[in-house]
């Protein structure tokens, strides 16, 4: 069910501010890849550019071989790529169930898969089944994050992008969410995970990229990156980087 | 700086404006030759659009009809009448500018208008200064109460209509009345006269309510009136809201008879109020039922002739506003015909003031140096609405 995501030479920014500089990365079908890096490195911008919220200035994005560069977000989601955005962007005044149903908006009204996916999401996060009628803004942070992931899954994606799902959450909740991500990956979904918590992300991912200043600074298998001194430098600085 | 750029541009625009009319002057100059067949130029400032469009349009119709008739019959003393129309869009500032334009650029002898009281008052100062008479078709008492030697009026002002209606109410035994009036010029003026003359007529105003143009429901005001238990309710209002009052009164099961004045003497009131209009009494001029003039009288002939010609031309019966306009142009034509010597705005004004016993639609006019309305309560009759039309009461 997963598809391959390729990003080639992507440049993007806001107005005159260039944030992404020639970013190339790929997520193979069924793979979980993490993109780590300190604040302001451009990770969220990359996800926005891929999902269509931001128009790339240059470069290409292909999904399962189909080019989606510069497409409107409402069309990209129909190509089976879903984004769990930074800050979750839930429809706060709406109930949990309504959020989930809106998540399936991109699919035909009578798509039988919707009901099946709803079941799957509720299995993944049983809380969502219990709290179906609750106004989503009243959920705890962790529950909101689960809902955001569940909502994205309702579009039936082949590639899932997540922007800092651990942000501001308690460790126990983070563990539950990452457990769910592991399950999804084991079911074959391709996942691109943006995280600030490098250790956490690298423990779960197959491969990782380290971003700094809008460009990819390092890449490699997750377990190798975990032990790399340079990753620490990317975060906490210290000596000037050798790679520059 | 961008801000100061304005000044240069303003200058350029003003210069452009200044140059344009210069070219136009010669056009005006050519029109002022003085041959015998040269038309008398009369201005008309009407509300053809805006709130009073419902007044201005029948007024224009009537004027066009009468001017054609007069000119077809050879004009006045061999000279045709030419009317130059201006639309004030029911805006006092526009009526004033229009008056100035008519006086200065068209060189009119007199101005017929405006349709509304406020618009008439706005034209006054410039007309007085230029010495051009105004014949207003608006009913505000202020137009002739606040006397100006240059301003005449054709409709019956509230000064005449209100006491008539109050007398009729008293005569019918309604000594305590509830009043509902609009907050526009007509309603406020009428309300003043009702409150001032009630005692004289022997009636007491036990409830006094108002509403605004555009209101969609007057049942609160009527509930308050109902609680005061008057013998009858007097509606002093113009515009479509008057019909709502009649409807609301009926819906509230109010048993008191309803009275009104010229403001509700419109077919639209009957259409709008529907069933609720039945039994409403109103005091106004005689044009609604020309038999009121008395068959065979000159007034009757004038009215029936006008009604049939108007119907032929426009397919509907003339309303009271058409009547006001008929009188305005008729009075001017009559005065022009009586002028001996040079026809100027001055001599036209003097001739208008000497109008005596001229038979029109609103009544028989006799102007004087102190009365520029020229009508009396004798021109009033009381109607009752029955079967969707007006009938003479009693």
């Amino acid at each position, binding site marked *: 069910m997963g598809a391959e995501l390729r990003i080639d030479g992507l440049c993007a920014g806001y107005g005159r501010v260039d944030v992404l500089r020639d970013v190339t990365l790929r997520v193979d079908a069924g793979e979980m890849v993490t993109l780590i890096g300190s604040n302001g490195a451009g990770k969220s911008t990359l996800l926005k550019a891929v999902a269509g919220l931001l128009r790339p200035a240059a470069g290409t994005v292909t999904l399962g071989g189909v080019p989606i560069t510069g497409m*409107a977000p409402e069309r990209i989601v129909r190509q089976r790529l879903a984004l769990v955005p930074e800050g979750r962007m839930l429809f706060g005044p709406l109930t949990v169930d309504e959020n989930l149903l809106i*998540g399936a908006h991109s699919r035909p009204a009578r798509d039988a898969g919707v009901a099946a996916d709803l079941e799957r999401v509720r299995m993944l996060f049983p809380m969502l089944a219990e709290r179906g009628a609750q106004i989503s803004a009243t959920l705890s942070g962790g529950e909101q994050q689960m809902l955001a992931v569940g909502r994205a899954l309702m579009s039936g994606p082949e590639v899932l992008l997540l922007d800092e799902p651990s942000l501001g959450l308690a460790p126990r909740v983070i563990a539950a969410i990452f457990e769910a991500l592991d399950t999804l990956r084991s079911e074959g979904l391709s996942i691109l995970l943006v995280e600030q918590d490098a250790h956490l992300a690298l423990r779960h991912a197959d491969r990782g990229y380290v971003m700094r200043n809008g460009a990819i600074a390092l890449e490699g298998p997750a377990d190798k990156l975990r032990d790399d001194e340079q990753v620490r430098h990317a975060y906490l600085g210290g000596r000037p980087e050798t790679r520059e | 700086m961008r801000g100061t750029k304005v000044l240069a541009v303003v200058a350029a625009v003003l210069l452009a404006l200044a140059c344009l009319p210069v070219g136009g002057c010669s056009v005006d100059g050519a029109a002022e030759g003085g041959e015998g067949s040269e038309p008398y130029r009369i201005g008309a400032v009407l509300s053809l659009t805006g709130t009073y469009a419902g007044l201005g349009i029948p007024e224009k119709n009537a004027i066009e009809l009468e001017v054609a008739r007069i000119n077809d019959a050879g004009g006045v003393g061999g000279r045709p009448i030419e009317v130059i129309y201006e639309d004030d869009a029911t805006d006092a500032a526009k009526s004033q500018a229009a008056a100035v334009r008519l006086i200065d650029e068209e060189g009119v002898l007199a101005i017929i208008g405006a349709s509304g009281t406020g618009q008439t008052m706005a034209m006054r100062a410039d007309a007085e200064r230029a010495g051009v008479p105004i014949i207003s078709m608006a009913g505000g008492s202020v137009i002739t109460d606040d006397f100006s030697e240059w301003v005449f009026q054709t409709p019956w002002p509230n000064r005449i209509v209100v006491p008539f209606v109050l007398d009729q109410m008293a005569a019918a035994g309604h000594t305590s009345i509830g009043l509902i009036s609009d907050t526009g010029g007509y309603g406020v003026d009428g309300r003043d006269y009702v409150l001032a003359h009630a005692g004289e007529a022997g009636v007491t105003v036990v409830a006094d309510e108002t509403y605004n143009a555009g209101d*969609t429901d007057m049942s*609160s005001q009527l509930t*308050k009136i109902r609680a005061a238990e008057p013998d009858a309710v007097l509606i002093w209002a113009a515009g479509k809201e008057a*019909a709502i009052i009649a409807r609301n009164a009926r819906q509230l099961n109010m048993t008191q008879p309803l009275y009104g004045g010229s403001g509700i003497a419109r077919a639209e009131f009957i259409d*709008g109020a529907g069933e609720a209009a039945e039994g409403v009494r109103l005091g106004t001029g005689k044009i609604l039922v020309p038999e009121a003039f008395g068959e065979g009288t000159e007034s009757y002939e004038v009215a029936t002739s006008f009604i049939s010609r108007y119907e032929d031309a426009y397919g509907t019966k003339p309303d009271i506003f058409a009547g006001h306009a008929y009188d305005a142009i008729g009075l001017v034509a009559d005065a022009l015909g009586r002028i001996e010597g040079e026809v100027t705005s001055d001599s036209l004004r003097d001739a208008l003031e000497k109008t005596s016993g001229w038979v029109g639609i609103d009544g028989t006019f006799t102007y004087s140096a102190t009365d520029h309305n020229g009508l009396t309560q004798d021109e009033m009759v009381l109607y009752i609405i029955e079967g969707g039309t007006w009938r003479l009461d009693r």
Partner: protein
Amino acid sequence: MEAAEFLQYVIAGLKSGSIYALVALGFTVVYGSTGIINFAQGEFFMLGGVLTVWFYGLGLPVPIAGLAAVATTAALGILFERFALRKQRSAGPLVLVIITIGGSMVMKSLARHLFGPDELSLPEFTPGPSIDIAGAAVERQALWVWGLTIVAVVVLWWLYRKTRLGRAMRACSISHDAARLMGIDTARIVMVSFGIAAALGALAGFAVTPLTQTSWDAGAAIGVKGFAAAILGGLGNPVASVVGGLVLGLLESLSVAFISSTYKDAISLAVLLIVLFARPQGLFGSARREKV
């Protein structure tokens, strides 16, 4: 004051109030999806009445004429959005608001050209004497006004709560970006909102015309009242708009009863101002980020 008399004031207030509520709902629906105040909303009300009279004049029965008028007005609302507003969305809310002001001038003036300057009448849906409720008289047409208001509110509620489109509209009013990520075509939603707003305004115009008559210039006054009601409730919340409309109608009616009919508009607006100064986001609004 007797109970029956008081009830009569309440009924009068609820009658005007439900019309304000319908118009306010129109403001709210458009505001929700676009963040702008549609100054042409009052003209939709006018068109509803005027077009009904026109269709009725063609020989259609009143209900069909009303339906046709509501549909035509909705179509005009959609066309207005599609051709006058959509391309300008990036220019900012102020420009859009000015376009709606210009649009309202044109709609009003065109209505005068097409339907004449005089007031137009429509027969009551079910003529007959008024109905007695605890000593207070209620017009049959008022029942229709309430009935249609309730139907409109219920349909709108059903649409918002139970349908795919409604969910998309609500999503859109919370965040355009998040809605687009869900695959919602926000441009289409905005267009639909204009259609719904126009239909709501037209429905109010249709329902009330037998009571009040209508004319080409009937939109401005009701537009102000509807805007006031929407603000009073708190912009962007449909329930609050309905409550705002009813409260405004009651305020006016009770001002007549206890203070003065002359100052009823001034009183109700003064109350509105006091509410705003005390609660800048309206009675029920939450402090939402403004787009202007």
